[in-house]
Every structure is written in structure tokens, then in C-alpha cells.
């Protein structure tokens, strides 16, 4: 109990003093996860919207595979990306292994199925309800998908947050492909694992608190934005 209390106090001191090591790790984590989520959101929105409005043979199988990928363990993603980027792998010529780029690729691969699956669901629901009217106006299925993705942007904010949350909290993939090198590829989750094993609990706990704080802040921000958008939509919508 004393150890927990002491570690907590020391962690708060590190945060309050903006410890340079802590700040650099936090900054790397945030930029990595933001970039991976950003790429996944752009690519995933197009793919999800396309999947929502497309009808083709084998679509059910694609959706089943996509849903399976939602529960993919991050270490498996790390392993696959590791094999792809290793010297003998098909992408070995890039020389990305144990770099920020490798971690970015791994996190993007990890969160992309989440974005595609959730965007697909949101856009498909909207398409089932308004798709016919958009077709009547002259929009083809693909354009309808993109218009509806834009129209459902408040729901897509939740998708973005889910993607960022999954990216920033995962440890397995970045550990495998990044190598947890201090000053280069060490992020919050890999640092927590390492510092805990070394017994440096204050830094581990400080990083843990920052991680929680970041997620809490994002949740509050999202709740505020959604409430504002819903209020704007609901205003004056009575008969």
C-alpha cells in the first residue's frame, strides 16, 4: 500500500514538473497514435462507406472477416508486421523495422478494421434509410456512401475516438516492431511495461496516469462535441 501511495505521489511530482523523459515519451505516443488513427480514419472511411453501399458476391464473407479482425490481438498484428518488415520479408527493403514508421504501420493495421467496420455500420444504416432518396436525386451508390459518411460525421467522431483509444492503449504491436528503444521508439505503454519490470514504479505510474488523463480528456471533448451537434440538429425539429 505504501509502495502504491509513494509511487502515486512521485508520479504526480513527475507530471507536475513536466519531467523531460516523461514528456518525450508522452509526445511520441500521442503523435504515433494520432497519426495512425488519422490514416486509418481517412482510408477506413472510404473503405467502410464503399462496403456499406456495395453489393457483391462474397460480401458476407468479407464482413465476417472484418468482424474477426476487430478482435485481433495486437501482438499478432505486431508479429505479422514484424515478418513483413524483417530483412527477409517482402517489405524488408524499406528498412523500417525498429523505427517510428514500423510502429505507425502496425498501429494503422491494428485500428483500420475497427474504423472500416464501424463506418460501414453507420453508413449502411443511413443508406438503408435515405439511400433511395439520394438515388432519386441522382447520386450513385459510391457518392451516396461518401455523402452519408459526411452526414453522419457526429457518429464518426466516436469511431475516431475508438480508433485512437485502441491505438494508444496497445502495447504488443509497437513493442515487437519498435523495439522499445529509448528516445526513438519508446512509447507510454512499452515504457510502463519496461519501468515496471525494472522497478521504477513512479515513472510507470506517471505514464499510466497521463494515459488515463488523455483518454478522459478525449472522452469529455467528444461528449461535448456530440452534445453540441445533437442540440444543433434537434433545434426546431418539432412539427
Amino acid at each position, binding site marked *: 500500500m505504501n509502495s502504491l501511495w509513494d509511487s502515486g505521489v512521485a508520479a504526480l511530482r513527475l507530471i507536475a514538473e513536466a519531467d523531460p523523459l516523461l514528456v518525450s515519451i508522452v509526445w511520441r505516443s500521442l503523435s504515433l497514435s494520432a497519426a495512425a488513427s488519422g490514416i486509418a480514419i481517412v482510408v477506413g472511411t472510404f473503405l467502410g462507406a464503399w462496403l456499406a453501399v456495395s453489393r457483391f458476391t462474397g460480401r458476407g464473407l468479407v464482413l465476417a472477416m472484418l468482424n474477426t479482425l476487430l478482435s485481433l490481438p495486437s501482438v499478432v498484428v505486431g508479429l505479422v508486421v514484424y515478418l513483413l518488415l524483417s530483412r527477409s520479408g517482402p517489405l524488408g527493403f524499406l528498412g523500417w523495422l525498429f523505427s517510428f514508421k514500423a510502429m505507425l504501420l502496425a498501429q494503422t493495421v491494428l485500428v483500420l478494421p475497427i474504423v472500416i467496420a464501424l463506418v460501414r455500420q453507420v453508413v449502411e444504416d443511413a443508406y438503408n434509410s435515405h439511400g*433511395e432518396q439520394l438515388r432519386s*436525386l441522382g*447520386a450513385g451508390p459510391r457518392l451516396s456512401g461518401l*455523402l452519408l459518411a459526411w452526414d453522419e460525421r457526429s457518429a464518426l467522431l466516436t469511431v475516431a475516438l475508438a480508433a485512437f483509444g485502441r491505438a494508444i492503449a496497445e502495447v504488443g504491436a509497437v513493442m515487437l516492431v519498435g523495439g522499445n528503444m529509448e528516445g526513438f521508439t519508446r512509447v507510454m505503454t512499452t515504457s510502463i511495461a519496461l519501468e515496471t519490470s525494472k522497478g521504477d514504479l513512479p515513472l510507470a505510474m506517471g505514464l499510466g496516469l497521463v494515459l488515463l488523463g488523455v483518454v478522459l480528456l478525449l472522452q469529455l471533448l467528444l461528449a461535448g462535441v456530440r452534445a453540441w451537434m445533437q442540440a*444543433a440538429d434537434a*433545434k*426546431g*425539429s418539432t412539427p
Partner: protein
Amino acid sequence: MTLPCLLHVQDVRVALTPRHGAPLALDSVSLQIHQGERVALVGANGSGKSTLLRVLHGLQKPVSGRVIQPKPVQQAMLFQRPVLLRLSVQNNLALSLWLRGMAWRLARQRALQVLESAGLGDVAQRRGRQLSVGQTQRVALARALALEPQLLLLDEPTASLDPQSKRVVETTVQHFPGTMVFASHNLGQVKRLATRVIYLEHGRLLADLPVHLFFDQAYLLAHSAEAAIFVKGEGV
């Protein structure tokens, strides 16, 4: 003199679901829509009115039969519960014009003109989802008319409106110069707006008459007992 035919529906059958052997929403329906006609589709819920409108508009494929368009016809459809996107009302209208090939800047200008001439200039900058049901219906009608259609299809255009909005929509529709096909439960409205009435029951076309004969009870009874019972039941 027969007016030019805009649409020719030939023995169209539409299934309720894609499943083989599913019940029919439209059963061997044949008709022609001529230029300048104002055709009312009447019948109970589930009689096939909306399905027929969707077939005419090309949104629903028949399982058999076909819809022939002798010449290309610019169409627009007003749905029973129209949807506006989360854009400004002006941009909602501009989008429909842009989708028909108009440049975005011109489309926005034209949209504003249309809204102002429809008495909706004050809502042009409001978001589409902020409007009341009546305003939404009026904006959707303005959006359909902005496309300058030769054929206007309306699915229960005043079903969920208050009396004032109903009057505005009806007046706007009355002044539409082109051909019109509309589904309605309101036989008073059918009398006011239609020149021809088609009665549907369980997906079958049972009566297709000029409006004055449709509301002639004796004539209708001789022509179609089902249609006569429907009209009598509606108290007209």
C-alpha cells in the same frame, strides 16, 4: 387528340422481397402516363401505391414486365418523409442541382432563387435537420421543382402536415405546369388535384378512370365494386 406518352408500364410485377416466390407488391399492372396528366394513385395501405411510384421513378426493378420511356423524361420525386442532409437548406438544394450536372457556384445561386420564390428564403441558411416537418416537406418540394421536372412524382405529399402546410404544398403542386403522379389517401385532395384516378388493391390495378367518373358512385360501382366500396368507406 392523344397526348404524348411519357411512361408506358407493361404488365409489371414487383415482389415484396427478393426471395423466390415472395408475395407481390404489384401484380400485372399496365398503364400509360401521358403528358400533362395529373394522375392520383389511391387505395388502402399496402395496396402498392408507393411501389408503383418507385417503379415509375426507376427506384424499384420489376420481377417481370417493363417500364418504357419513349423519350427521356426529367423526373423528380417527393417522398412521404423527405430527408435533408446536415447541410444548410440552400446547400441541400444546391446539391441536388449539382448532382444533375450544374456547377456548384451556379447551383447555390439557383437554389437561393428557388427558395426565395417559394417563400423559404428565411430558412436558406438553417441546417436541413433543424426544420419542422412542414418546412422540410416544403423545402423538399422546392428541391424537386428546382430540377424543373417534366414528370413530378409525389408520395403522400401532405400526409403528415398541419392544415396550413398542407394548403401551401397543395397550392404549389396545383401550379406545377408539368405531368404529375401522386399517391394520396385524401380523396378531397384527389378531387382538387387529379384529372385521372387509378385505384389499386393488393397490388392489382382495379380502376383507371377520369376523375369525374371515379367519383360518380353509380358508374364506379358498375366499373369496379372494390373501388366503389373504398370511396364509400372514405365518405366522399
